[in-house]
C-alpha cells in the first residue's frame, strides 16, 4: 500500500446538513480506476475532494504522498470538471495556451494535448462554435496538459459518439500504461468494462470494489448494471 496514488481515510463531507460522503475509506493505485454510480451519489464531490477544491467535514486524503490540494500537487494532478470548463470565446488552442502558461508549460505541451483528444482540425475554432462533444474534449485536453501523475476525470465521455468514446478509453489506458493513475467517473454502466478496477457508488458510500469480472462473478450477473441492482437489492434485503 506504499505506492498508492490516492489514500483516503474516513472522508466525510456534509452539505446542507446532509452527508454527501460518509466516512469513506479508499485507496487508488495505478491503472484506470472507474467510479460508477447514479447521478447525485457523490462522485463529483469525491473528485473535488481529490483535487482540493471541496470543503471537507472530516477525514484524511493523501494524494501522491501529499495532503490533497496542497500547493505542490497543483502541477501534478489533472482535473476535468463535469461541465466543460473552457472559455467559450477563445479558440481551442488559445484556451490550452492560456492554461499552459499558467502551468509554465511550452507550446509542445499544447500540441500534444490537442492531438491526444483528436482536435487538430478544430484547434483554431472558437469553442462556442464547437459541438458539445468537441467542447468536452477541449476541456479534457486542459486536464492532460503537462502529463500529470494523477488524472481526475469527471464524466469525460458523456455525450460522445461511440467511436470517440472508444478512442478516449484507449487514451486513458495508454496514459495509465505510461504511469499515470487515471480515475474516471461515469454514470453509464456500459463503460464499466473498460476499467481495470471498478468502484460502484451509491448514496455517498462505495458498495462494490473489484475488477469488472470479479464484480460480475460475485453477483452471478452478466453485466455491471445487473450486478449493481443485485448488490443494492442484497443491501436492502
Amino acid at each position: 500500500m506504499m505506492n498508492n496514488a490516492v489514500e483516503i481515510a474516513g472522508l466525510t463531507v456534509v452539505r446542507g446538513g446532509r452527508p454527501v460522503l460518509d466516512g469513506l475509506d479508499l485507496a487508488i493505485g495505478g491503472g484506470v480506476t472507474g467510479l460508477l454510480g447514479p447521478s447525485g451519489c457523490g462522485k463529483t464531490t469525491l473528485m473535488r475532494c481529490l483535487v482540493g477544491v471541496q470543503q471537507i467535514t472530516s477525514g484524511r486524503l493523501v494524494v501522491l504522498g501529499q495532503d490533497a490540494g496542497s500547493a505542490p500537487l497543483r502541477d501534478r494532478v489533472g482535473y476535468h470538471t463535469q461541465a466543460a470548463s473552457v472559455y467559450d470565446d477563445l479558440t481551442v488552442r488559445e484556451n490550452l495556451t492560456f492554461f499552459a502558461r499558467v502551468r509554465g508549460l511550452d507550446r509542445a505541451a499544447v500540441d500534444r494535448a490537442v492531438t491526444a483528444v483528436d482536435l487538430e482540425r478544430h484547434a483554431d475554432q472558437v469553442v462556442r462554435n464547437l459541438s458539445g462533444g468537441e467542447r468536452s474534449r477541449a476541456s479534457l485536453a486542459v486536464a492532460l496538459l503537462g502529463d500529470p501523475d494523477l488524472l481526475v476525470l469527471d464524466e469525460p465521455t458523456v455525450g460522445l459518439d461511440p467511436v470517440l468514446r472508444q478512442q478516449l478509453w484507449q487514451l486513458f489506458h495508454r496514459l495509465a500504461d505510461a504511469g499515470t493513475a487515471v480515475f474516471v467517473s461515469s454514470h453509464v454502466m456500459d463503460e464499466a468494462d473498460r476499467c481495470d478496477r471498478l468502484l460502484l457508488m451509491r448514496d455517498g458510500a462505495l458498495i462494490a470494489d473489484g475488477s469488472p469480472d470479479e464484480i460480475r462473478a460475485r453477483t452471478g450477473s452478466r453485466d455491471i448494471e445487473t450486478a449493481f441492482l443485485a448488490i443494492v437489492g442484497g443491501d436492502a434485503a
Partner: protein
Amino acid sequence: MNPRVTLAVAARVLSQLRRDHRTLAMLLVLPTLLMTLLWWMFEEAPGAVFDSIGPSLLAIFPFFIMFLVTSVTTLRERSSGTLERLLAMPMGKLDFLFGYALAFGLMAAAQSAIAVGVCVGLLDLDVTGPVWLLMVVAVADAVLGSALGLFVSAFAQTEFQAVQFMPAVIVPQILLCGLFVPRERLPDVLEAISDVLPLSYAVDAMQSLVGSSSTGEAWADLGVIAIFTVAALAFGAATLRRRTA
C-alpha cells in the same frame, strides 16, 4: 504572486475582449459618446454648465462602465467552472485578480485617454490644472470601478444578480458624490457617508483639477482612490476560496 501567471491572465482577458466587439466598443467609446451628449444638451443653455458638471461625469462614466463589465466578466468565470479549474492549478489568487486589474486597467487607460482627449480637445472643457493628471485620475477611477466589480461579483450567483448591484452600489455614490449637491452642503449624516464613498474622491479630484492649477488636492484624492482600490482587491482575494461547499 507570479508575474508569468498574472500576465497570462491579463493577456487572456484582453484576447477575450478582442473577440467581443460590442463590449470593446462600449468600453472604448461609450464614455466619450455620453460626454458628447452631455455637452450637446447644454450647448444652448446660459452659463458654463458643461464646464461645471463635465468633470464630475468624466469621473462617473468610466467608473460605472468598468464596474459593470468587470463584475459580469468575473462572475462568468466563477460560474463557468474555469475559476475552479484555475484554483486547482498553481495559480495564486492575487495573480488572478491582478491579471484582471491589469487587463481592465489598460482598457481604462485607453478609454480615459479618448474621453479626456475629446472633452478637452473638441468640446472645449476648460481645465486649469494639467490635462495629463486629469487622465491619471480618470484611469485610477476606472480601475477602482473594476476592483469594486471584482469584489461584488463574489456576492452574486447569476449575471442577473450582478447587474442588480449597479443600482445598489453605484447609484448612491453618484447621488452623494457632489454632482447634484456640493458635498459640504449635504446634511451632516449624508456628508459623512459621502466621505467614505470612493467615487466622492474621484469627483473631488476632477473638480479640483478643472478649477485650480495646484495639484496637491488631486494627488491626495488619488491616494485615497488607490487605497480603496487596493482594499477592494484585497477583499476580492478574500472572497476567492480554493475550497468551496
